[in-house]
């Protein structure tokens, strides 16, 4: 029992009991005595100067206790570019931007007071499209990038709306295209979409007269939030406390401060009082964050036998009014732009573009989804030109151990081909000729793959506090958001200490007492916190060895320390579950295991121009998916019959948790492929609600999702594990697009692949076919 192997066990999520009983506490479920309720007056324009704001009537509204504008509180924040005001001042940069915040005794009073704000604006020309934004003479969203503090990997172009220009070059692209027998190019785009977490953004803030700022929030990265707040408020880190609640879905959308700056600005006006604000669903669409539109141009060059000779990629990502994680998304997308293929000559230009639109930020996949939609679609176009099987073309070019990546790294622990082969087998790729069903529907198959990096360098830490009864409290700073990370970390600690899962308590995250964590993003927590937690558990065993030596009066070196077990030279032994009986802890130094992990030692800084590096990333994630779909040529509707998804998780610490991540990501990918988009008329969102912005219901998801876990252990991962939070969403979309092209003979270049677009494509095709020959 004490030596139970927890690694590879599908342990039930440790927080699932709370979630099925309704006792899990999300931020919206919290309240404080005499708390105030916030509400926001938002910009009615996409781009305008703020001339005056008249608050006289607001103050007359019964119950109003605090009112704050950007002029009162002209501070900026930002993870990578410090460009975003707590509340707009000077001008507004998107429709829905917070301009005035109000706190009142009741939510109704606060909402009533918002109606009484009289603000006068002078409208400026809006910038609603990335290509308009980069055109000569476009109105500037931000006048001068040099006024902002900008992270060192970002390259803004002065005097333009280009917030970051990512460049990557390898070999000689022109020579590569000259060498090619076939050159094929295309442009693929994605609309603005939203995370649509079922829990909207929410926060509660309390500011004390001594400068303390307390924030309760369902944030993905509490320490990143603390750091941004402390910088913006010019406070020492110790004075900002972020207390994380349960998170009702994040997917990258809760990686940014959205409600927090508003409630903090209010709370500073009423020291001691708690101010709470929960975004409505409409506010969620208007002014949380989105995945901005993207346009990706891909040009591929290949020999007649399919060997790729050159790839050129030009990407435009709409980051909206403020940079947030946009430049980092651009960076990661740029890294992954040429796909999991051996390409000797590559050039990538990625433009992260500011517009006067909703804020484009991180979304599960972090740019790689948009990139893979483009290059994997283009790979199928190339296969058609070469009259090659799309799988053969991919297998011919796919990277393997020892291949050199686009960024110059000699790759290892690669599974691209293994994943492709696994899904090809699972979908019966050999029998993939289109089939017409008796109802007249067309059944086809499609395939796609990708490679995605995590984030590097970064750091994590863990503390394992041993109790006298052999149970432990584990403190980490990364967030559980449904991915079962806390369960996985508990499994690792239980495994190292030879104790049961019931003996491990994961402490809720609070920046006041939990150890530092950089970010809960990039599918990095199992790997990074895992490494830290294993070290912390080993540290517990080392400290126990010393205490046992004292108790047994022997040399510590003579004691063998195994997983949760100490054996002395005279046959003495103790296990953690029996710790109390052994009494080696009595009146001794309390045992607090500490583990830290960073990737700064393996990281080789990138060449600033070519982005080449011997080791730019601690690990890559590999996977492939193959789909079978059915297209109804009468209605244009696509039904996804089956998705086979093979992903390399390194080591499945908790196999069910891996399945859950992939299955959920696939269903989200189906939504992105077929139904999801924010629809605009100018700067107005026409579907800022869940009636008109559809996300997949059970009726939309694949009839079957077959997940294949590939366990190609990573030498530096805990027990070999890699990450799996994001990758499942990446290949779903291009695989469906490729199957659709097989079915209708036309390619749709812009998502989502809605029935009307399918019908239009079919019409186009029949016009081609029936065109009279002259």
């Amino acid at each position, binding site marked *: 029992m004490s030596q139970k192997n927890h690694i590879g066990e599908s342990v039930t999520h440790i927080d699932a009991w709370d979630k099925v*009983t309704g006792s899990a506490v999300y931020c*919206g479920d919290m309240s404080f005595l005499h708390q105030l309720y916030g509400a926001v007056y938002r910009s009615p324009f996409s781009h305008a100067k703020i001339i005056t704001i008249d608050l006289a009537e607001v103050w007359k509204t019964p119950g109003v206790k605090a009112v704050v504008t950007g002029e009162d509180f002209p501070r900026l924040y930002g993870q990578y570019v410090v460009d975003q005001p707590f509340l707009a001042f000077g001008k507004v940069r998107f429709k829905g931007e917070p301009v005035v915040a109000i706190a009142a005794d009741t939510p109704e009073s606060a909402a009533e007071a918002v109606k009484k704000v009289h603000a006068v604006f002078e409208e400026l020309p809006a910038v609603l499209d990335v290509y308009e934004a980069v055109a000569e003479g476009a109105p500037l969203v931000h006048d001068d990038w040099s006024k902002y503090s900008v992270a060192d990997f970002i390259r803004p172009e002065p005097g333009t709306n280009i917030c970051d220009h990512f460049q990557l070059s390898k070999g000689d692209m022109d020579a590569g295209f000259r060498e090619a027998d076939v050159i094929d190019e295309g442009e693929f785009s994605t609309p603005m979409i939203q995370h649509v*977490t*079922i829990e909207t953004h929410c926060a509660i803030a309390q500011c004390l007269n001594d400068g303390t700022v307390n924030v309760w929030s369902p944030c993905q990265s509490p320490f990143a939030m603390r750091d941004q707040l402390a910088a913006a408020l010019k406070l020492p880190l110790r004075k900002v406390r972020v207390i994380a609640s349960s998170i009702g879905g994040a997917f990258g959308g809760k990686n940014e401060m959205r409600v927090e700056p508003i409630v903090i600005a209010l709370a500073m006006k009423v020291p001691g009082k708690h101010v709470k604000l929960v975004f409505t669903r409409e506010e969620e669409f208007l002014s949380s964050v989105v995945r901005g539109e993207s346009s990706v141009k891909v040009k591929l060059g290949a020999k007649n036998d399919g060997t790729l000779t050159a790839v050129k990629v030009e990407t435009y990502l709409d980051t909206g009014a403020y940079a947030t994680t946009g430049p980092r998304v651009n960076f990661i997308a740029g890294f992954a732009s040429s796909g999991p293929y051996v390409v000797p000559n590559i050039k990538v230009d990625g433009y992260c573009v500011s517009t006067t639109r909703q804020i484009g930020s991180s979304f599960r996949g972090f740019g790689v989804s948009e990139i893979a939609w483009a290059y994997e679609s283009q790979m199928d176009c190339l296969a058609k030109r070469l009259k090659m099987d799309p799988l053969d073309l991919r297998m011919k070019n796919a990277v393997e151990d020892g291949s050199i990546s686009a960024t110059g790294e000699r790759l290892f622990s690669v599974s691209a081909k293994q994943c492709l082969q696994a899904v090809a087998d699972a979908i019966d790729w050999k029998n993939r000729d289109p089939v017409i069903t008796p109802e007249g529907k067309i059944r086809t198959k499609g395939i796609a793959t990708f490679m995605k990096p995590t984030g590097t360098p970064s750091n994590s830490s863990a503390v394992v506090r041993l109790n006298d009864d052999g149970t432990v409290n584990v403190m980490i700073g990364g967030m559980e958001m449904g991915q079962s990370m806390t369960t996985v970390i508990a499994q690792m600690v239980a495994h190292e200490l030879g104790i049961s899962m019931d003996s491990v308590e994961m402490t809720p995250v609070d920046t006041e007492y939990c150890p530092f964590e950089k970010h809960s993003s990039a599918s990095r927590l199992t790997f990074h916190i895992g490494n830290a937690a294993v070290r912390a558990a080993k540290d517990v065993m080392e400290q126990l060895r010393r205490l046992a030596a004292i108790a047994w009066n022997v040399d510590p070196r003579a004691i063998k320390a195994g997983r949760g077990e100490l054996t002395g030279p005279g046959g003495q032994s103790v296990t953690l579950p029996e710790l109390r009986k052994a009494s080696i802890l009595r009146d001794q130094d309390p045992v607090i295991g500490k583990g830290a992990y960073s990737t700064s030692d393996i990281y080789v800084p990138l060449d600033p121009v070519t982005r080449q590096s011997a080791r730019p990333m601690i690990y890559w994630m590999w996977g492939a998916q193959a789909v079978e779909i059915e297209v109804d040529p009468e209605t244009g509707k696509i039904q996804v019959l089956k998705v086979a998804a093979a992903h390399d998780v390194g080591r499945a610490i908790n196999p069910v948790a891996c399945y*859950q991540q992939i*299955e959920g990501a696939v269903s989200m990918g189906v939504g992105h492929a077929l139904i999801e988009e924010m629809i605009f008329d100018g700067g107005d969102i026409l579907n800022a609600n869940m009636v008109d912005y559809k996300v997949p*219901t059970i009726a939309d*998801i694949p009839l079957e999702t077959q997940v294949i876990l590939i366990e190609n252990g990573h030498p530096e991962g805990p027990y070999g594990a890699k990450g799996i939070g994001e990758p499942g969403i990446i290949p779903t979309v291009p695989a469906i697009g490729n199957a659709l092209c097989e079915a209708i003979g036309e390619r749709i270049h812009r998502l989502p692949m809605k029935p009307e677009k399918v019908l239009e494509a079919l019409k186009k095709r029949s016009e081609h076919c029936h065109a009279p020959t002259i």
Partner: protein
Amino acid sequence: MKEIELRFRLNGEEQRLTVPSNVTLLHVIREHFGLMGTKEGCGEGECGACTVLMDGRPVTSCIILAEEADRHDIMTVEGLMKDGKLNRLQQAFLDEGAVQCGYCIPGMLMSAQGLLNENPHPTSQEIRKGIEGNICRCTGYNRIVNAIHKASQDEGDS
């Protein structure tokens, strides 16, 4: 605002209260009774997170007025456990790995309970129909369907 007096059963207990006539059932459940298991996701009856049972049938409590609950029997997720034990649906959700972020789960459980009240042994198709109004952004639904199926197979009280 006009005040109205309500009388209803909530998770088996008789309740009386006076509320403004415009408040929703969801508001009463959360703010008056402090039962925070029932969630608001969209405020317009579209996501299903606020689903509770009224006389054993699922309703979206964010769009029905508290007044409509008068003299009815309301059950929320907090009412599912019996004698400190999970009911068979809750247990099946754990066993089948149907829970991720958990925010949709109370509503999902209530829709499932409503379905089983009406149809104790639903087919997979009937299960899918039964939870069509509940959005889950994390799981991809199949494990939820499996859990409901498993619960419907289990003997014992509901």
